[in-house]
């Protein structure tokens, strides 16, 4: 038997490297969802009355909704009573900085390649870490607060900056928006909060690292980023989870608000556990991400590298409200084995002279299904709106599928919407060609996939581009280190 992968099928076999479980003391509430669960969560987080009321309103709305069925993904019925809605690593004491965190926790993140201590200072990245339901600690808080930047967990923001949270929470993704957004609004446990004051260019990358650790726990994080006039911030999120045979639910909501001339760049490297090669286990990633270009000349740019999750259902969107505002969406979605991804974006042009650009690269391998679903809407008032969309699909092998669902709604005659799509296939012929040149199967697949995804990868902040490229390589290959 040869040990090295030879065929395309072997070369794209996934080995998930982040699947370990941290043995740590965790505060877990009983499975199940009811008003009482929500009261319990709110109580554990010592939340003010208004927050609890908001959650309960969302919960009551959620009860009236039905799970959406329109996406191109298949999964068994989720039993919402079989999920743990709150699990928190027990803090030994109140933490002032990450350096004081439980060594076991720090070790966990070291193992994941995320250094939470001094080291990160060199690369200039501030990190917030969320394990299961709570934020463990945030680095660089003080340095950031000196220039007025608030970067903390959403729980802390609810305590310390209630006026901001009240004003913006649900302003971009209303609790009534969709099934999973309503659920998240009811039970969200933690997430990040960023506030960039007027005229400030945030000097470092802000990043949040999400980790699901506890069995049967759902992760429902909530992220809110506000960029005041003429400010700039680049934010990155990453995520991983242990390997488990049962599926786990992740239903996050992210809201971005960009005021006049502000720019938010939001990058995601999503690597939740995708399930094993037979399709057992993995995260259901049902996420609502939306940005509002509220002010004139504002800009929001989404970049995502999606390699994990058994099922991904997510459409980071931009509402282009301000005149001359710009929305961008750059995406690489890689699916392997039995993964299913239904992802894309919505660009809603409301203001005049608004522009949007969509670059989607879908890569499917194994038996996976990869769908791009995108909506470009130009409203009546959106004079001179422009959109350019490019959706490319790459099929590795012949058992996988790629699908493109572009929806275009134009109500203003001056709007111009362009859509281009390509599908290419990598088969044994291409692989043989590479091997005949001395390039082995693994390297060949990495070369092909990285070449295909380059345009999107180039959008990532430097430090993460390298990580993301490695991640993409690891997701596809059995043994390339």
């Amino acid at each position, binding site marked *: 038997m*040869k040990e*090295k992968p*030879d*065929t395309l099928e072997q070369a794209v076999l996934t080995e998930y490297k982040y699947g370990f479980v941290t043995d740590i003391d965790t505060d877990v509430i009983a499975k199940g969802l009811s008003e009482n669960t929500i009261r319990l969560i709110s109580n554990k987080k010592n939340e003010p009355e208004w927050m609890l009321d908001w959650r309960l309103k969302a919960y009551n709305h959620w009860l009236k909704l039905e799970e959406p069925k329109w996406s191109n993904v298949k999964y068994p019925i989720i039993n919402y009573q079989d999920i743990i809605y709150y699990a928190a690593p027990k803090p030994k004491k109140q933490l002032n900085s990450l350096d004081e965190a439980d060594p076991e926790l720090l070790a966990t993140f070291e193992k994941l390649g995320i250094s939470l201590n001094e080291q990160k200072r060199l690369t200039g990245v501030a990190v917030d870490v969320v394990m299961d339901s709570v934020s463990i600690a945030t680095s660089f808080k003080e340095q950031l607060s000196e220039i007025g930047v608030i970067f903390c967990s959403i729980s802390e923001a609810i305590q310390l900056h209630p006026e901001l949270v009240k004003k913006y929470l649900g302003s971009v993704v209303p609790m009534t928006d969709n099934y999973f957004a309503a659920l998240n609004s009811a039970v969200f446990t933690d997430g990040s909060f960023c506030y960039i004051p007027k005229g400030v260019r945030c000097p470092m990358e802000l990043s949040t690292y999400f980790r699901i650790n506890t069995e049967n726990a759902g992760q429902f994080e909530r992220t809110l980023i506000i960029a005041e006039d003429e400010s700039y911030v680049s934010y990155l999120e990453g995520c991983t989870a242990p390997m488990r045979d049962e599926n786990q639910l992740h239903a996050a909501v992210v809201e971005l608000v960009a005021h006049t001339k502000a720019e938010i760049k939001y990058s995601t490297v999503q690597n939740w556990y995708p399930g094993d090669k037979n399709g057992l286990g993995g995260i259901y990633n049902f996420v609502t991400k939306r940005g509002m270009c509220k002010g004139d000349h504002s800009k929001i740019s989404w970049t995502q590298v999606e390699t994990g999750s058994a099922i991904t259902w997510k459409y980071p969107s931009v509402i282009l409200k301000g005149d001359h505002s710009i929305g961008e969406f750059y995406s690489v979605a890689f699916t392997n084995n039995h993964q299913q991804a239904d992802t894309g974006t919505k660009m809603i042009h409301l203001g005049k002279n608004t522009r949007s650009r969509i670059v989607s690269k879908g890569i499917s391998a194994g038996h996976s299904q990869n769908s791009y679903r995108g909506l470009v809407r130009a409203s009546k008032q959106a004079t001179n709106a422009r959109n350019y969309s490019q959706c490319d699909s*790459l099929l590795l092998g012949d058992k996988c599928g790629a699908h493109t669902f572009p929806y275009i709604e134009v109500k203003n005659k001056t709007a111009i919407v362009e859509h281009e799509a*390509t599908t*290419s296939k*990598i088969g*044994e*012929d*291409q692989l*043989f*060609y*590479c*091997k*005949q*040149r*001395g*390039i*082995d199967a693994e*390297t060949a697949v990495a*070369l*092909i*996939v990285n*070449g*295909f*995804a*380059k345009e999107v990868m180039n959008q990532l902040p430097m430090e993460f581009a390298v990580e993301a490229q490695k991640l993409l390589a690891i997701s596809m290959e059995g043994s390339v280190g």
Partner: protein
Amino acid sequence: MLSVKNIHANIDGREILKGINLDIKPGEVHAIMGPNGSGKSTLASVLAGREEYEVTEGAVSFLGKDLLELSTEDRAREGLFLAFQYPVEIPGVSTTNFIKAAVNEKRKYLGQEPLDAVAFLKMMKEKMALVEIDQRLLSRSINEGFSGGEKKRNEVFQMAMLEPKLAIMDETDSGLDIDALRIVANGINKLRSPDRAILLITHYQRLLDYIQPDYVHVLYNGRIVKSGTKELALELEEKGYDFITDEVDLAANQ
């Protein structure tokens, strides 16, 4: 350098090669000719190590090694090069990056350091001049949207870059107009050297007007039915394949 002994090969259970014998020494140019479907590309694929083909009998030694024991990529790294009859397109991978990967994989195998950017560029420049290939072609995705002639020229360019010990050229002349044929043939001629052997697979003898072979073999129905010097090619040109194949068929029926 290459010694092929009684090779039989199947695809999907059907025997295509029915006992091939071939000996090639360094510096020699051998031409394999034969009608379509006779097994020329199959022989090239089997030597290069394409998995779909099952070798049921025979042995091949290459530079003293058992070729059939080596993986496809190791055969390449040992110095076996195949210029494809139908080079495939690989979207998203620039020709330059592809060749760089190939060159460095080979160097790694041979225990050499990877070429740095400067050295690689220098080598590219030299070889580009040698085979008269346009630089613009090399920044495009490999073979994607290339014309037939551009694809073949790109194959010869890769051969120049990889400096193989044995180059198998599978109908590198087919589909080329006379100018392109001359350029490609010139490129190949420049790559001839005393320690490099070339196996030219061709359907027509016109390529042999430009590249003088030392030996000519006629492959028919999975066997080499006739071998000779370059005069054999001329005879084939004149009389057609029938004069040999009829003979073979006749013998088979007796």
